[in-house]
């Protein structure tokens, strides 16, 4: 991304509006050209250095989301000081009231697009951002709120709000990449703080982030976990889900819930067969595919297929 003065219009969308056409694949990485070189020298200082032109300006933006991914950044207790030393935190309302005007070198975007105002704002942010990284399931797949894509939003509105007429909302919840070009997508609900730091370190050092796209099973086996569907019949989405969490749930004897979205090679049809064999009802299988990454194309298709009677 050498030139962000312009931005492209929303990517082509499918009927359901879920296509992540503009998503940048991890393999393509961050383009070194976008990386501000001089960051390194000062970054070596352990303490937050005073604002300077040399440090890249970081902005953290929020759309429809729970704030969990931004909090992951604040949870990086051990690393916070060096983050603050390495970048100039120019806009991060969750952390500081000080606001520095754009443009920004690096924007982290949390949340999905659910209102007409969101659609306008994300284009503005894109135009002000050198590199734009989306963080979390909401920003990369539409989040749990993408369940509205299967529902009647007007009905929700009239049930939940006394004056639904004051509300302006879209029928769908869509990922950021459905609206603007995104340089890198970091998965997770919430994102994993080690991965977040890895993306920041990669950005600062002008290299590709080392974020694997293989299944959760790889992390699970490396940890020496006992596979829960095999050893006690607990359904697990690990085989179709991208690693990143450190196989958190299986480590505590639970099945994977798919927080990190589809792995690079996703055979949901085979996993569905396995979930049926483990005794899950079709409605439950539909539900496990439709959680935080309901809008990810592979999970969306898998849930729809089961709903259409394709599980048996």
């Amino acid at each position, binding site marked *: 991304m050498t030139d962000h003065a312009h931005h492209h219009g929303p990517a082509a969308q499918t009927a359901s509006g879920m296509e992540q056409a503009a998503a940048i694949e991890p*393999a393509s990485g961050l383009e070194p050209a976008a990386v501000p*070189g*001089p*960051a*390194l*020298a000062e*970054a*070596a200082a352990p303490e937050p250095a005073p604002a300077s032109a040399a440090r890249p300006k970081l902005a953290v933006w929020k759309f429809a989301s729970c704030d969990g991914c931004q909090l992951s950044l604040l949870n990086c207790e051990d*690393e916070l000081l*060096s*983050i603050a*030393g*390495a970048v100039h935190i120019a806009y991060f309302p969750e952390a500081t009231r000080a606001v520095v005007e754009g443009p920004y070198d690096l924007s982290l975007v949390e949340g999905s697009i659910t209102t007409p105002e969101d659609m306008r704002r994300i284009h503005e942010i894109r135009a002000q951002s050198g590199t734009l990284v989306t963080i979390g399931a909401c920003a990369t797949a539409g989040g749990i709120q993408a369940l509205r894509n299967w529902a009647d939003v007007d009905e929700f509105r009239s049930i939940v709000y006394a004056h639904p007429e004051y509300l302006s909302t879209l029928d769908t919840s869509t990922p950021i990449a459905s609206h603007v070009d995104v340089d890198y997508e970091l998965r997770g609900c919430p994102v994993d703080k080690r991965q977040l*730091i*890895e993306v*920041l*370190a*990669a950005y*600062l*050092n*002008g*290299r590709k982030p*080392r974020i*694997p*796209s*293989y*299944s959760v*099973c*790889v992390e699970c*086996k*490396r*940890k*020496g*976990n*006992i*596979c*829960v*569907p*095999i*050893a*006690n019949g607990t359904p*697990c989405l*690990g*085989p*179709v889900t991208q690693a990143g969490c450190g196989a958190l749930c299986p480590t505590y*004897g639970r099945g994977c819930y798919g927080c990190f979205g589809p*792995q*690079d*090679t996703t*055979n949901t*049809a*085979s*996993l569905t*067969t*396995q979930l049926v*064999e483990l005794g899950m009802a079709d409605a439950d299988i539909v539900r496990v595919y439709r959680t935080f990454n309901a809008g990810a194309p592979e999970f969306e298709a898998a849930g729809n297929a089961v709903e259409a009677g394709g599980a048996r």
Partner: protein
Amino acid sequence: MDDIRLLPATGLEGLIAQLRSRGYRVMGPTLRDDAIVTGEIRSASDLPQGVGDEQDPARYRLRKRDDGAYFGFAAPAQSSKPVFFPAEEVIWRGRRDTAVTPDSAASASTPDNAGNPTTAPASSPHDPGFTVERDQLDAPPIALLGVRSCDLRAVQIHDKVLAGRTYIDAHYVTRREATFVVAVACSDPAATCFCASMGTGPRPAATDPATGEPSYDLLLTEIAPSDPDRHHFVLEIGTEAGRDVAHAIDTAPAEFDDQHEALAVTAHAASQQTRRITAATVRDDLRASAESSRWEDVASRCLSCTNCTLVCPTCFCTTVEDVSDLTGATAERHRVWDSCFSEDFTYIHGGPTRESVKARYRQWITHKLSSWEDQFGMLGCVGCGRCIAWCPAGIDITEEAAALGRMRAGGVLPTGDHVPTGDHVTVTS
């Protein structure tokens, strides 16, 4: 019968204590969560006494036995692979040097190699370079207790792969140094076991077929676990080190009948195995099957999850993962398990060479049962059945091999005896 002794069931405690007193870290089967795993054994109470297992495709269950057997189960969830070849280890650490020439400021402002310490130190006169610290291994010698024939054979295969070629895995060699092996003859194979057909069990061979070295220092066969008065082990001595340990613990002399009784245990175990691979023909069956329609079939079931390779005691593929801190001042290179089922495994510029799942499954089974022999002079499967039990889709290597054999015999192959070359089936080194 100088090489055979009898060890009372209660004598396991003394054996473990003896090994520990000699400075060994004793690793053997132990219960964790819902499975038997390989872990540290500090006393006989760490062993899964009275516990058995059931293993089927995509299914593993512990069961309570109605006797006091210490080793009345089949292959544990993971073999001893991680003991010598851990899933992740640091190969080296690098630190960017701060001390410097007058030009250092200039170097800091052009961090071309930031986070990339694989380049030569001080690659330019302005670059202060970096210092590499190798990870120092300081681990006590290992005693494997209760290692089964299949897994022992797998360790020998790893000795060849990781320590018997031009480039050796130095950490593996260090960890394997001075290993003491107390093997156990299998009495209760699972439904997934097929070592008998692979010639790798249930009774361990006395010597490594490749090197002629003794396979074990001591071999235990558990006798009469259901009779507390008779419950004991036949203890066979394989080396002088084994003899030394045997003489230091409380054993009794054995008779000819005792050895007979031990052999009967493994003969019975072999007769219980229902799965098999035709080891004599499987290599050629796979060579002839590069274009088989079976690959589409198995790919429709395969999740490309990697579990089969990660539980396989002989799979040895790894990748390196580099990590750096935010500033690029320090970096580490980690060696981690990888798998031919991951897409990035064959990633080269432009993309992976094995993009389809059928190509990945074909690579796995062909490597295990065919090209491994070209590469190492032996098959890469020891018949432990883990890839069957721990495959979430229940894909059965014996059934896939049999299907390919049947299809070849029935002429259901589009290209006959096509011998794969080039990128069809890649031998992994």
